[in-house]
């Protein structure tokens, strides 16, 4: 005899946690895992646990946003630097190069909203290249703007760590 699913009852209930329509015959919500027929304590624990995760996710998203802002900041610096150098040297290649860097960082900054881990990792790598090349050209540049460099690198590190945690929580809370 073929196994068949029980028919849904006519009475539609809604999950207290995520408001998805569920059947009264279900023990758990199929969208978020809320214990529909659990004890009051079990239900309160579930809601608390989910709320804590949502709060953590909000904090992680703030760090990701800061890392995104760091990408935009580098883009602005790159364009400004390119314009200033072009004004003094009149070399089109320098302006073009800085424009390309600016566009790449803007694109990565925009992408960091959807795929923060990939965007921040890529931005951090490109930033590292720019720092190393500047240092080879003129070692003094390692310390120039050191505070900005430390802040940006710090934002990238926190952004990467937050992106890892945020992806994990989104998976658990079914927010993908």
């Amino acid at each position, binding site marked *: 005899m*073929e*196994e*068949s*699913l029980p028919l849904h009852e006519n009475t539609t209930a809604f999950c207290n946690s995520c408001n998805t329509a*569920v*059947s009264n015959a*279900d*023990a*758990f*919500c*199929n*969208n*978020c*895992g809320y*214990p529909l027929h659990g004890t009051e304590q079990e239900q309160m624990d579930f809601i608390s646990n989910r709320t804590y995760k949502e709060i953590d996710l909000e904090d992680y998203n703030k760090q990701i946003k800061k890392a995104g802002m760091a990408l935009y900041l580098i883009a602005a610096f790159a364009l400004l630097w390119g314009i200033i150098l072009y004004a003094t040297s009149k070399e*089109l*290649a320098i302006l*073009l*190069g800085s424009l*390309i*860097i600016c566009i790449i960082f803007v694109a990565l900054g925009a992408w960091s909203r959807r*795929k923060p*881990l*990939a965007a921040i*990792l*890529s931005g951090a*790598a*490109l930033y*590292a*290249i720019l720092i*190393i*090349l500047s240092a*080879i*050209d003129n070692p003094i540049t390692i310390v120039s703007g050191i505070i900005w460099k430390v802040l940006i690198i710090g934002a990238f590190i926190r952004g*990467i*760590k937050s992106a*890892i*945690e945020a*992806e*994990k929580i989104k*998976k*658990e809370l*079914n927010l993908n």
Partner: protein
Amino acid sequence: MIGLPSDNENRHKYCLHCNGAIAIESRFCKHCGSIQITQDTTTSEERWVIIQQMSVFYGIILLICCLSSFVDAFKTSKWELVFQGLMAATTITFAFYNWPNIRPLFRWPNFSLQKLCAYCAIAIVMAIIVHYTIRWLNAVVFTRQIIYNDFSDMGKFAPYLMIFSMAVLPAFFEELGFRGYLLQGLLKISDPGQAVFVSAFLFSIIHLSFLSLFWLIPFAWYQATIRLKENTIWYGVFIHFFFNLSACIYQMWP
């Protein structure tokens, strides 16, 4: 009256934990409450360690590339070979440190000569297109392009050394490093789409040429996609070899 099968009978699956029948779109089991997505066993701490390790690898390779490209004292054939050796040694070290993950990539499942020839032909065509496009772009906007060391100071061995250094070594070690070690690491910390893009982007920017980014990124993305699809580094190694060999030939005989 024979009715059509109900939606529920056709669209159900079985819970990963209690084996109860549940709707196919369920993210949690309605019987036991367990999550239905395959749980990733890599913890956040492990992912951070992987990122740190990859950063060290990339940092070493990056430093070598920067020194060899922009420090005049290192722009000799001997230093070229030294740097190639250092990059190879770095790649081997990191690959062996992660050997259980890397070893399966050395197999060649479902080897097909036809496929290999097709991939290599595509690589040669890509090299031709890139060569002429770069030449045109360079005439329009003078900027840095990738110029291979022709080892002219090494006498009659120059062409062989050039091909060995520019086609053979990079084909194997760059594939092992970027589509082997780096891509495997990225797959542990993110989804395949992000991993492919990041490996392609990192590979492209390390060549330190703005003008070449327009072809390096698609090339590296293509290589990473093939590596994932074919589950081996060997197709990529041959594609890379023929691509670089074509570039060497153009430079030796413009």
